[in-house]
């Protein structure tokens, strides 16, 4: 087991109102599996991802990453956790505009312990011919693939993708998803994809549907659906 969350709750105080973003959620992430976290906006899926990714702390409950309890870590500890173990893919790519594709990847590999070469990571996402392009010179899909290369180049144990296709059209979105699937197959990195798009659910080993801060449903796909068969 890579990560085990137990009884995780998160309460935000918005002025006088208490918002229960998560209500005692239990979730396991296993080695090398691909999990899809499905839910409507406000279902608590982003809050859960933030807590798993070490960006936020639960109000109560525990999150154990291997033997470490993330809720015990301070800011510095959480930074090291993200630095060593987590890869992030953002909805809006968040590339550094002043760096080329290769340099955006290098920026992360330069601080990693055992990274793969930036070129290899970009090759994996099919961008060997765009190494020296700046973000402004690339399409949205290409930028998101650079972002995936940047996330996987440091060989994280866990790849967290927050609405990775949210800003893309269908065809480009599918291309990005197939890259994620391929990366999961070749590197065996545990991958969690957050989406509100139910059509994507089929590509995961496991699907967790969230609603009102709770896990509403969880099921295992016997067969992962090929990206080609997905449409929305």
């Amino acid at each position, binding site marked *: 087991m890579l990560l085990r969350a137990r009884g995780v709750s998160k309460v935000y105080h918005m002025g006088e109102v208490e918002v229960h973003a998560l209500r005692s959620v239990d979730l396991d992430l296993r080695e090398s599996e691909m999990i899809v976290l499905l839910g409507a906006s406000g279902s608590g899926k982003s809050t859960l991802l933030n807590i798993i990714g070490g960006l936020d702390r639960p109000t109560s409950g525990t999150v154990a990453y291997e033997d470490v309890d993330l809720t015990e870590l301070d800011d510095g500890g959480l930074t090291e956790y993200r630095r060593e173990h987590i890869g992030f893919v953002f909805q809006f790519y968040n590339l550094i505009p002043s760096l080329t594709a290769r340099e955006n990847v290098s*920026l992360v590999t330069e601080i990693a312990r055992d990274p793969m070469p930036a070129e290899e990571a970009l090759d994996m996402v099919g961008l060997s011919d765009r190494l020296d392009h700046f973000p402004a010179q690339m399409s949205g899909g290409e930028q998101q693939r650079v972002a995936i290369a940047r996330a996987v180049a440091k060989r994280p144990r866990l790849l967290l993708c927050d609405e990775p296709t949210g800003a893309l059209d269908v065809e480009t979105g599918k291309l990005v998803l197939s890259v994620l699937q391929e990366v999961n197959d070749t590197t065996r990195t545990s991958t969690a994809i957050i989406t509100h798009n139910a059509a994507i659910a089929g590509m995961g080993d496991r699907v967790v549907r969230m609603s009102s801060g709770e896990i509403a449903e969880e099921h295992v796909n016997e067969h992962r659906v090929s990206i080609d068969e997905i449409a929305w």
Partner: protein
Amino acid sequence: MRAIDRKLLREVWRLKGQLFSIAMVVATGIMSVVTMRGGYDSLEAAQEAYYAETRFADVWVSVKRAPEKLAAEIAGLPGVAEVDTRVTALARLDLPDRAAPGMGRFVSLPGGRRPRLNDIRLLRGRPLAPAARDEVLASEKFAAARGLQPGDSVRAVLNGRLRTLEIVGIANSPEHSYSVPPGSLYPDDERYGVFWMNRDALGSVYDLDGAFNELVLKVVPGHDAEAVIDDVDRMLDAWGGQGAYPRADQLSHQVLQSELDQNRVMSTAIPVVFLAVAAFLLHLVLGRMISTQRTEIAVLKAFGYRTREVAAHYLAFATVAVAAGGLMGAVGGAWLGDAYIELYGDYFSFPDLDFTLRPTLLVIAAAVSGVAAVVGALGAVRAAARLPPAEAMRPEPPPTFEPGPLERTGIGRMLPSAGRMILRNIERQPVRAGLSALGVAFSVAILVLGLFMYDAVLYMMDLQFRVIQREDLTLTFQEPVSRSVRHDLSRIEGVTLVEVWRSVPARLRAAHREREVGLQGLAPGSRLRRVVGQEGREHPIPSQGLVLSSILADQLEVSPGDTVRVEVLVGERRSDWVPISGVVDDLMGVGATTSGPVLDLLVGGERAVSGAYLSVLPSGRASVEARLDDMPVVATVASPQTMLDSFEEQLGDSLYVGVGFLLGFAGVISVGIIYNGARIALSERGRELASLRVMGFRKREVSVLLLGEQALVTATAIPLGWLLGWALAFLVIASLESETYRIPLVVSPRTYLIAAGATVVAAVASGWIVRRRVNRLDLIAVLKTRE
């Protein structure tokens, strides 16, 4: 309150740090106008009033001894409005503490009437009784330094006789507003004072009954003073005239005037720098604000706000910063002006010297800062006004980058990605980075320039008092005496070395160019007094010919090997051709030096000396001075070491205040630029940096990425500022060069280090303030939102 005004207020509060730093820059600029220009106005007004009240003369001339009736003849010369004569003398003071010799300048006042020219202002006590022979009025500075009051007395050696004089009043005069002992450049109020005495009393002591040794006159307005000076010189030639000089060469007036001129220049130049920096910062901050508020601008316009109203809204931000700064500057300037004038009061004794602020000055200051606000805000506000509503609704296109020229040189390949980020951010906006560096360079330059002044003065003092003047005591005699005085002096116990010197006024001519100077004859091989150039190289005392100071050589257009006609203005008034054996690039005065024997030949008659330099055992100093008191021939005794000590003491005080102000000035600029630069970079790249934090970059690493740009700007600015400071020092020297002294261009390594160090401290402090914001970056927001 309208909603748009409420938006203004809230956003002003949100931008308070940045607006405050801009306000501080404006405040410093306005403060310097108010303080310096206000100080200038006050000093000038006090000067004008004082000169008018005391009927300050236009021309001065000293003679050996001239009959009183000559005054009427001179009064009849064309262009002469008024004439007065008097007796003046330098005399030793017998001060109660014998640590160092004191000196007094005695000036006669006509008995029973006010002087026609160069009157005095009686501050305390009473005027001299008409027939009193032992009464004096003492100068205010001396009395204050010595704690003397009317009723106290002072002992002076007048023409060889020790006299006890009763101080009946305390006075001052514009002639001695700035009062320095002869041969010195700086006041020494404890050991040098001016004393006014009845003409009959002083005249009889110096054997000048019915005669005078100084004449002052006023020129008819509009009449050429030079023509009058020529006429006066011709008339007084036969009476030992030593060359008339205009008010511009009168020491007290000259020093005050050059101070006023400096003030006028600085009170314009400094505010210009500060207001330019403020305009630049406003441009940066507002430009950034408007690009983050594109949507809001669009919404305002979509709802029907007029372009004019939108522009006024953003202009209001600039107005808030500048108005707040202007107000702080005006209040601070008025407060500082008082202190500033008080400081002047320590140097120039002026009655009725108060800091007065002309309302027009405040109006000008307000107008100038208003212009800075508009200029700074103009570009940004125009961009906001021009945005069409639909265009403004769309997010700004992503910035495009490319490797800049600096990187293409190959530096890029050697840098890590973080380094390339920093470099490209700078290269993408080279004008902004360049102006930032220039602004910070100015703050470095202000420090270099300010500290250089102290370097230069210390260098001059060191050269003058440790290299050139190496005697312990400088003696001048009542009148030229035989060389045999040397033996009398060397027999005094405690005196280890005696060198005599002679000085005569002379006119040097080369073709049609001429110049009156004090021609000095030093002992051949002189060890106590030497001729040394500003670079520290010694010129031997010539065995024949003259060594001229370079300013004099330039004026006469002569160089070594040429000859000049020397007309001695005393004794038989002989003249002769003398070769120039050397030119010395010295720092003080305009002089010509030769050896004693050569000078004796030029003067003719008996060989004589005007004074002596003594080297004295430290232990025997008091007894030597006691013995000198008993020698009637000795007119004055001065101690270079005492002058140096009192000077360094004064310098020490002003150094702390001066350096404090400089650091403040420079700090306001560099903090303003670096803090705002970092804040804007954070606003532009906050999202970028937050995503790096999400990916596991440490706070420190992200701070490096953010502040690296400012560090690079600072690193570029420092050497640039050194260069700029050096260049400014060069310009200042050129503009301040005068006959009394020349400032050497020496900038100590310490000055460069302090300038760089202070700037680095300001940069680090600014970075530290901004870094706290890096620590508060919202990591979760970047996952979701597009900017």
